[in-house]
């Protein structure tokens, strides 16, 4: 956890160039105006935890960043490229540099663990020989401590194992940005701790930038060096864990109780 302390104490100034720039983001679903004027910048190597009430637009934010949801107004730039102006091919190329860990793990039910990991690799056009693919799959599974689960089906995995395989599937492409959608939700404290350790190892090994959507303050404190709180569709408050915690405001205070 020393590694976690180093991350959470590091200030935003110590990082590289911006890799994600969100400005004036507006997204609505019918009459439900989820994000109204959201702004956020994430620099290379930096991790930001996004907090907010259920349904406040946290998952919508990262889905807009990766181009899964079109946004109504504003700007989302990833590696200095405006997401809404990219062609499908350019978007696919960009997505190869981003890892997305889904809340439900989103493993393909009809494929084995090996096929799940191979799928992303082959689909992003990273042409490798069969042996190279297999060794990369084994290496990535080893990183998440599940080398012996290679031929299991997703239905044979526990919740924690599914989360790890979901993480491995994102890592196999060696992404520069990781987007985590509630990585520890629904897990027991021990498994949750293991996932947090994995996230810290990923950050250390690949120097990834990350946006972590979470309700788990323990996870946010250990894995992020900055917090952003969404209230009424805007970046209501941002700062280090201690700064946001000590900010005496009825909108942010309940997260730390």
């Amino acid at each position, binding site marked *: 956890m020393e590694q976690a302390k180093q991350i959470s104490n590091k200030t*935003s100034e110590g990082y590289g160039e911006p890799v994600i720039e969100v400005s004036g983001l*507006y997204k609505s679903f019918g*009459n439900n*105006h989820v994000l*109204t*004027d959201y*702004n956020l910048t994430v620099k290379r190597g930096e991790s930001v935890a996004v907090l907010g009430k259920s349904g406040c637009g946290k998952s919508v934010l990262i*889905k807009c960043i*990766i181009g*899964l949801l079109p946004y109504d107004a504003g700007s989302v730039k990833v590696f200095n490229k405006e997401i809404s102006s990219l062609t*499908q091919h350019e978007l*696919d190329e960009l*997505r*190869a540099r*981003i890892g*997305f860990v*889904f*809340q*439900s793990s*989103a*493993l*393909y*039910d009809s494929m084995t663990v090996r096929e799940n990991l191979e*799928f*992303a690799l082959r*689909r*992003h*056009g990273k042409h490798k020989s069969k042996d190279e693919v297999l060794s990369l799959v084994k290496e990535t599974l080893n990183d998440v401590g599940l080398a012996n689960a290679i031929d299991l089906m997703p239905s044979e995995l526990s919740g924690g194992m599914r989360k790890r395989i979901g993480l491995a*599937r994102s890592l196999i492409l060696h992404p520069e940005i990781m987007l985590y959608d509630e990585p520890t939700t629904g897990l027991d404290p021990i498994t949750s701790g293991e996932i947090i350790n994995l996230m810290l190892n990923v950050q250390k090994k690949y120097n990834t930038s990350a946006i972590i959507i979470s309700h788990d303050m323990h996870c946010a404190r250990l894995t992020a060096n900055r917090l952003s709180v969404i209230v*009424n*569709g*805007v*970046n*209501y*408050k*941002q*700062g280090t864990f201690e*700064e946001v915690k000590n*900010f005496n*405001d009825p909108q942010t205070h309940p997260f730390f109780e």
Partner: protein
Amino acid sequence: MMNVIQPKYKPQPPKVTIFDRLPKSMVDFLSEAGAISRFAGKFFKQAFRAPFESKELFRQSFEIGYRSLSLVAITSFIIGLVLTLQSRPTLVEFGAEAWLPSMVGISIIREIGPVVIALICAGKIGSGIGAELGSMKVTEQIDAMEVSGTNPFKYIVVTRILSTTLTIPILIIIGDAVALYGSYLAINIRGSVSLTFFFKQVFDSLAFSDIIPAFVKSFFFGFAIGLIGCYKGYNSNKGTEGVGRSANSSVVIASLLVFLIDLVAVQITEFFGFL
């Protein structure tokens, strides 16, 4: 860093359109029909564009076709058997027992075989596709596929619709053959006729105008079953409850469409003088 931002957005009142004056059920029906048409349009747009997911197409054809074969064969066999046993007493009464193979052959090839097998497929395949895609949607597997650089519509929807369009006509041909064999066995319960003579009588009474329209409409049945299953599953929401609804409505709408297509096919056949 310690800035507090207040929202700038002020919601605008929704605009009133002509559709707000129509009954809600009619608006729902029209919007559903429009959405299915757009979904079909998207299928035709993407089906003929590279990359072609041939591996997934073959896998789906195997899953859809081969795994439905036993159900189709058993039900077809029973239909042929029962239809013959039920028709026999009436024909005997009029001294027309010799017409039994011809009558059963025409009934099965023209109408009963395609429609009944399509309905069985709507139940088995349509619900399966609806539930599978619905489950993929609510567990974010479709999003995961898109993030992995794959067009999920092409990989999941196009392959399944093409598979049903191509395999259901094959299932219908096999089902027709099995139903005729069932009929042959039923005739031999009370009487005695050779297999060769039975099939000679069946084919003597059949013309191309009986076979071709039935064969052509079976492609439309397959397309409708795949389209509705995929549409309902792909647009599934509201969690696991939505998955159940997708499966259920896939069967209901696909079955209804089978009858509608059959009705249209009969009119077209009649128009071109095949009846």
